[in-house]
């Protein structure tokens, strides 16, 4: 009784059930996400064509990748699209949520209207916006038909602004979800803060900008993860709307990966491109994840 013996059971078997139940997650994380990624990176150093082959060629695929004008265009597009879609999703999503939070009538109806596009796939979204933005019989055509002959609105056929045409569709589809997240966040804010601001005589917009938004940090972070993961993966929408056109003006990295893996039957090139995408994701995510999860552990 007095000895400090420690009849401590093996750590392995503590919470055994929890560990067993987590096996699917562990397998997915290790085998699919980690293993699959490693596999991809590994084969990006080969000259695999249609089928993966272990024929190493060093960094050739990467050299070719960074020499390809289409890849550069894709990167640039992703940057523009990414930044804009982040900003607009957040701004529009937040504005909509703020509007809906004004204790308005028919809130349910409005919310449903803003949210329903999220139920549609990107393919459908792309298709329908391709149609609406068609200069001949879409919006431009209709406006011209009304007599405004010089009206010009043909984002999908103008290489300069095509990426904005895609953005319009993407925002249409995705802002509803963001709005929901923001609305949930707004509803979580202490009623008293609003009252305090009113007593202080702070105008509504200032209250939002200086007080409410800074308080909604966690919501913004969740939202950011959701938007950002969507941005990196954007593919279907471009395919359905422009197939990367006009020319290569609306190409995006995910499409480059797909095209080179399957159309061009050059797996090595596709893998090299996806490795670069992963790298950039990791550069962005890991510091963030460290900040978010690393810090929480000490609280």
């Amino acid at each position, binding site marked *: 009784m007095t000895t400090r013996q420690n009849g401590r059971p093996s750590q392995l078997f503590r919470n055994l059930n929890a560990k067993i139940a987590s096996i699917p997650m562990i397998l997915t994380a290790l085998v699919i996400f980690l293993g*699959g990624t490693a596999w991809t990176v590994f084969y990006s150093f080969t000259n695999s064509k249609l089928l993966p082959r272990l024929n190493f060629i060093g960094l050739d695929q990467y050299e070719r990748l960074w020499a390809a004008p289409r890849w550069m265009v894709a990167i640039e597009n992703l940057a523009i699209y990414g930044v804009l879609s982040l900003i607009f999703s957040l701004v529009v999503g937040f504005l909509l949520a703020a509007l809906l939070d004004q204790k308005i009538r028919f809130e349910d109806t409005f919310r449903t209207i803003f949210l329903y596009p999220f*139920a549609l796939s990107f393919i*459908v979204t792309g298709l329908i916006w391709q149609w609406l933005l068609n200069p001949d019989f879409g919006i431009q055509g209709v406006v011209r038909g009304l007599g405004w002959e010089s009206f010009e609105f043909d984002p999908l056929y103008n290489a300069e602004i095509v990426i904005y045409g895609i953005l319009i569709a993407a925002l249409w589809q995705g802002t509803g979800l963001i709005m929901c*997240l923001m609305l949930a966040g707004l509803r979580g804010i202490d009623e008293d803060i609003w009252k305090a601001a009113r007593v202080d005589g702070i105008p509504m917009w200032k209250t939002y900008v200086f007080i409410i938004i800074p308080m909604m940090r*966690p919501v913004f972070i969740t939202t950011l993860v959701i938007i*950002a993961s969507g941005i990196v993966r954007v593919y279907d929408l471009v395919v359905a709307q422009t197939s990367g056109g006009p020319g290569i003006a609306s190409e995006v990295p995910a499409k480059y990966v797909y095209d080179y893996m399957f159309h061009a039957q050059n797996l090595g090139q596709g893998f090299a491109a996806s490795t670069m995408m992963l790298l950039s*994701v990791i550069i962005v995510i890991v510091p963030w994840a460290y900040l978010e999860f690393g810090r929480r552990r000490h609280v």
Partner: protein
Amino acid sequence: MSDPAALNVAASGFEAVAKDVSDPRGAKPRRVLSRRNIFLYGTLILIAVYYLLPLYVMFVTSLKGMPEIRLGNIFSPPVEITFEPWVKAWATACTGLNCDGLSRGFWNSVRITIPSVVLSIAVASVNGYALANWRFKGADIFFTILIVGAFIPYQVMIYPIVIILREIGLYGSLWGLVIVHSIFGMPILTLLFRNYFTSVPEELFKAARVDGAGFWAIYFKIMLPMALPIFVVAIILQVTGIWNDFLFGVIYTKPESYPMTVQLNNIVNSVQGVKEYNVNMAATILTGLVPLIVYFASGRLFVRGIAAGAVKG
């Protein structure tokens, strides 16, 4: 502050003004058409139009005949309403040699969606529960990998997963597809469930342990019954995602179990021949109907669930 109050208040306030302007009494008079209301509802209605326009165009187009579409304005309502395109999209549109429209894929989609939704949510909710309440060593690392996994483009994973499925002998079967959906649904769902279960008071979990309930008993008897809102969110997200999926449905199964989206793609994406926009639109609406119904039916729960799960933590 709710509007009905504002309305009757407006009336009483008006009387007061009539009596004595310098002596306000009762509620502040509020005109229904105040600047604020005009701005608020004006903006909302304008935005609502933007959101509804595509749906309107789809719907209107699907009710027009082809000649009318070629001539007319996409926004004008149909002169002559025809349900032909709907019938065609559902029952007679051809996919290669099979001319039975979307109806063929519908049941396949149901057969794919139900087990995929069930399995992916089951797995993710257990994961989230284990992560939130049982925090074993290393769990955070796996979770982080999972979250980073949410950013990987699907296309990159096609090959490795083909190989893995082949090795475990599930390639081409419905279960293979179900597993694929569960894998790709896992990151976001696990995040949702983890956050939700973290917000459940820890004392409840402790009480159950004192009461002698184990991992599974706590999950099934205590946590599950409390997690309805987050389940609704998960179900909505998964039904939408899986129902709309094309890539996995076509790559990891066989033609006899192709989902509805494959037929949709075939109808919409045929390289040759004249494009039948009305059929395309009808087919599009038909395909999107299931997720749309799910949304319309449970939108309120969706926001509540998100408030409970996604936003915290």
